[in-house]
């Protein structure tokens, strides 16, 4: 073993696997707690919005899922950079474990955006800058997952996916600004779910919901990375022990 390996001992799969297993229940509990609090504040306490009526309550899902979809992509790109720079095994697996959840968040953001747009603008879809960027983000997630799935060798998949993520993360601001600019040029109707001055209580509801989605994403990603770990490391001693020890 060389020195570099010791330095990254905590990134070593054998240490990380049980640690992740212990952490998952805490994130699940935190997610449920934040979710209930957020739903209570957002759905029961918060007053109606004078412009949008009760329909505005969709933002308690739409905004947190949009945030998460972008945030998860950034986290994946972060892991990709770590993985390419230090050649750590865990990084690529983390990125892969996060991708489906990120794609789900992007999808939910689009879905809620459409359901919000129908009553407010009379149409399911508007080529608004944010919705369009979100759609492109979903394409980027799908592209990443398709690329990783198409490569048989796990290490090569990690590295190629990592490069794609870094290229994507450089491009996202460019895409966002070009779409935004395109949108103002064509004077498209701007769906702006968060424009109206928000009451403090609404903001609290949104923050709590965002925390809930965050905790949920971490929990699911950790659960997924544990499976990927077992699969990838199936020939190592620790996985054999783990499997022999009545692992469910």
């Amino acid at each position, binding site marked *: 073993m060389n020195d570099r390996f010791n330095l990254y001992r905590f990134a070593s799969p054998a240490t990380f696997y049980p640690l992740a297993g212990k952490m998952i229940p805490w994130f699940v509990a935190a997610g449920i707690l934040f979710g209930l609090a957020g739903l209570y504040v957002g759905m029961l306490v918060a007053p109606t919005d004078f412009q949008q009526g009760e329909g505005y309550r969709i933002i308690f899902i739409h905004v947190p899922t949009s945030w998460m979809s972008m945030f998860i992509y950034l986290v994946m790109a972060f892991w990709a950079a770590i993985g390419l720079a230090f050649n750590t095994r865990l990084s690529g697996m983390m990125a892969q474990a996060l991708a489906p959840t990120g794609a789900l968040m992007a999808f939910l953001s689009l879905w809620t955006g459409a359901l919000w747009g129908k009553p407010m603008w009379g149409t399911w879809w508007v080529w608004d800058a944010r919705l369009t960027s979100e759609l*492109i983000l979903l394409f980027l997630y799908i*592209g990443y997952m398709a690329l990783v799935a*198409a490569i048989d060798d796990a290490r090569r998949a990690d590295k*190629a996916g990592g490069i*794609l993520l870094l*290229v994507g993360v450089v491009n996202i601001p460019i895409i966002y600004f*070009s779409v935004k600019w*395109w949108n103002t040029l064509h004077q498209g109707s701007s769906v702006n779910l968060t424009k109206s001055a928000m009451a403090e209580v609404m903001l609290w509801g949104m923050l709590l919901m965002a925390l809930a989605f965050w905790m949920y994403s971490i929990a699911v990603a950790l659960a997924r990375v544990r499976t990927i770990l077992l699969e990838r490391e199936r020939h190592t001693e620790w996985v054999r022990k783990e499997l022999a020890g009545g692992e469910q």
Partner: protein
Amino acid sequence: MLDIVFSVIARDLKLAMRRQADIVSALFFFVIVVSLFPLGIGPEVDLLRQLAPGVLWVAALLATMLSLPRLFADDHRDGTLEQLALSPHPLGLVVTGKVIAHWLVSGLPLALIAPVLGIQFDLAGDALLVLTGAILLGTPALSGIGAIGAALTLGLRGGGVLLSLLVLPLYIPVLIFGAGAVDATVSGLGGEGHLSLLAAMTIAAIGFAPWASAAALKIALE
């Protein structure tokens, strides 16, 4: 340093010239796709004029996509790619040469034939000029970004479809500003701003993309 770029360009151009059918069929694909649109939407001149920039640009994206899978695949299959990776020059420079050669045989012909197709859509003289300029300035970025996708999907099953899935979303800014330049000219706003943004994107893509592609190629060659 630049010798290697020019040697690669010269080699790839020579190869392309021996296989002109490929260039011509991509070009015809472009012409046919563009010519199908009026048949699909009807011959109203005002509508066609409005749609022209978008149609021409989308067709240009697709025509560029057509030749991308072979950008590295041929060299990979016959072992030349290994030799290129073993040349005593950074692989990024080699890829820069390949990207420029790809543009010379795919993007440049599109730009040259675009004004003729623009006439089909009743574009005015200044709009035709801007259209040609925009395609000239924008297609190098398409070749550059496309090279990353081609390198990432090298040797994979269903690589061609996957390549479009990876690359087309990244093409969106070029599409927006390329079509926007012509739109702005038609509506009398002037397309200079868009053209300079396109030029900026092309410079960034030519400077950055070959190195990302080189990293991807090294992974594929492991």
